[in-house]
């Protein structure tokens, strides 16, 4: 499939060059500039690096030219601070005249940049941030990552069908966490379940011990968790240390708690954890196997996680949109070409909803198992073509 694409691109490039006489538009041959705004330092640096790897992998595989235009990536570190993101975005748009803004590791960063995208009519591809309202902040935003409510649905549907009737939820006290708590509660109650308690852990310096103790005292069938990627280890360790698993409490959660990048180091405490998420590195498809292999080679042994895939797919969306608009589209034309794209990603089949500009994808239910000596999220069930519930409700 990769070879196909390469010939296709080369063919397009040749065709474009052939037509580049007389009636050539001004945009032909001009570099396609993509402004990549990522948190490369600070607590979310790993997100930034995964996205950068995903982007560069796509370019390595599909070429650094699209529709006759050389692709230029301008990478800026916003350290995860929204007013810096906003300033950098403004500079990228005004000084560097980028055609596309991409990246956005966290919700506030994306929200801060939305008005810039609208004002300057620049397409904006969100590759990580996961709160529902983001795509509504500007008509120029396309998302290839996921939304928390979309993903939480998975486990909220699965749990009641599998003997879990009473649940306590434990989430980190910030936007995505509260989103997850709400979605889970609504869907779980709808399916006849019962919420025994809803706990929130502070975002900074989380010490899970007292909260987990409280969970233990409430004696639910299962504990539903949502924590940002990277914090899962501490939670799992404390879960086991406190004896919650021996007390018969199952652990279910949104997939970030079993983040692929660090899953293997978590050790046996993670075994048996059931989560729902759009991507697992062990997803059984030829596209994914190739992707994981190439990614690990490029990143020197780091497994791709969800952000890496979202970035890879984001680049695909950009490239295809540029090709569809024959390399001359900007702003609104590009966004229109991005809407409705449907294709096979390493995670499975996905498409960009033409109405909401948000991503629609399969949500897999998976369990952490040891495969060939390494820990993986093995998918055993799936909810197909899940749209963001926060929007479909409208």
């Amino acid at each position, binding site marked *: 499939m990769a070879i196909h694409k390469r010939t296709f691109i080369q063919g397009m490039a040749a065709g474009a060059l052939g037509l580049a006489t007389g009636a050539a538009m001004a945009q032909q041959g001009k570099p396609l500039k993509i402004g990549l705004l990522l948190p490369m*330092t*600070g*607590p979310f*640096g*790993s997100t930034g690096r995964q996205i950068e790897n995903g982007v560069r992998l796509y370019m390595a595989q599909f070429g650094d030219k699209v529709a006759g235009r050389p692709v230029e990536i301008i990478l800026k570190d916003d350290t995860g601070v929204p007013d810096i993101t906003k300033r950098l975005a403004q500079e990228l748009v005004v000084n560097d005249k980028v055609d596309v803004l991409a990246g956005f590791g966290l919700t506030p960063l994306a929200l801060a940049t939305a008005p810039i995208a609208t004002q300057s009519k620049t397409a904006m591809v969100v590759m990580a941030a996961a709160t529902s309202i983001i795509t509504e902040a500007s008509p120029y935003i396309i998302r290839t990552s996921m939304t928390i409510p979309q993903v939480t649905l998975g486990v909220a549907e699965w749990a009641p069908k599998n003997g879990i009737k009473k649940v306590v939820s434990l989430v980190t006290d910030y936007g995505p966490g509260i989103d997850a708590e709400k979605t889970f509660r609504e869907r779980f109650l709808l399916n006849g379940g019962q919420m025994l308690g809803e*706990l*929130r852990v*502070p975002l*900074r*310096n989380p*010490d899970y*011990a*007292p*909260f987990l*103790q*409280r969970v233990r005292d409430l004696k639910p069938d299962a504990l539903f968790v949502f924590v940002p990627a*990277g*914090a899962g*280890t*501490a939670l799992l*360790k404390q879960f*086991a*240390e*406190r*004896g919650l698993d021996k007390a018969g409490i199952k652990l279910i959660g949104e997939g970030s708690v079993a983040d692929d*990048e*660090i899953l293997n*180091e*978590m*050790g046996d405490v993670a075994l048996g954890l059931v989560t729902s998420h759009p991507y697992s590195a062990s997803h059984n498809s030829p596209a994914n196997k190739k992707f994981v292999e190439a990614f690990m080679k490029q990143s020197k042994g780091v497994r791709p996680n969800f952000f890496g895939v979202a970035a890879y797919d984001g680049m695909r969306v950009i490239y295809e949109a540029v090709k569809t608009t024959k390399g001359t589209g900007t702003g609104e034309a590009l966004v229109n070409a991005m809407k409705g794209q449907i294709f096979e990603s390493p995670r499975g089949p996905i498409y960009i909803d033409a109405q909401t500009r948000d991503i629609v994808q399969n949500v897999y239910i998976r369990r952490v198992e040891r495969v060939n000596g390494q820990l993986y999220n093995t998918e055993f069930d799936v909810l197909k073509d899940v749209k963001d519930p926060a929007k479909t409700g409208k």
Partner: protein
Amino acid sequence: MLTILFDGIAYGMLLFILAVGLAVTMGLMNFINLAHGAFAMAGGYITVLLMQHAGVPFLVCLPIAFVGTALLGALLEGTLYRRMYSKPHLDQVLFSIGLTFMAVASADYFIGSTQQIVQLPDYLKGRTEFFDGALGMGHYRLFIIVVCAALTIGLQYILARTRFGSRLRAAVDDQRVAAGLGINVNVVFLSTFAVGSGLAGLGGALGAEVLGLDPTFPLKFMIYFLIVVAVGGTTSITGPLLAALLLGIADVAGKYYVPKLGAFIVYSLMIVILIWRPQGLFSRAGGK
């Protein structure tokens, strides 16, 4: 709940070991060393790296972490810190923040920014229940309490019963007079700083399991150490001990009983205590 009390004590003792070096350094050398957290991080990383790459058992790593960090502390004290004693507080703050930045960035560069995971030996994992679950003692936290209690008794003994201890106390109370009496203040400074940093390193190694370990550790936890020192005062070690226990229990209990208020409790408590007793809750009169 007894379990909550137990957890709070464990957390408090860990904070104490981490912060006691800072308290003594501040009291002795009147030097605000914001890089203290970096020493703790160093100890944690020494342990993790030895365990992951050299297969050294956990218990052996602990003294190595202590000694390694102590040596690092001694080295830095002799070369860099010594020149900073006479400088104004602000410059000291700037210097130590600069050191912390360098440490954080170096850790990020050489080791990577992911959370480090400590694989405990089996006898430290697990939990014992008493009174039908009313008191659950995690073995690792029990271990922490025992080790820290032993260290505290050891420190108190050194301070109160040995000649070095009396020299140290003299130098803390009045440096000039102590020097005038023939006490080699430089040696006292060097050894105290080294031991203080070593303890921080040990605390970092012990705490990697409970508090997590990544390059931003110094920045995240510095404020807790400062709270312990500010509330406990810098003139004794029982002061910081009680302050650390208070902080640990208040934090854990607050999050359990009133989770909505969580972090508020610690900060408000600290502000109230410091306004009521600006020299710290437990300082002796006559000390700095």
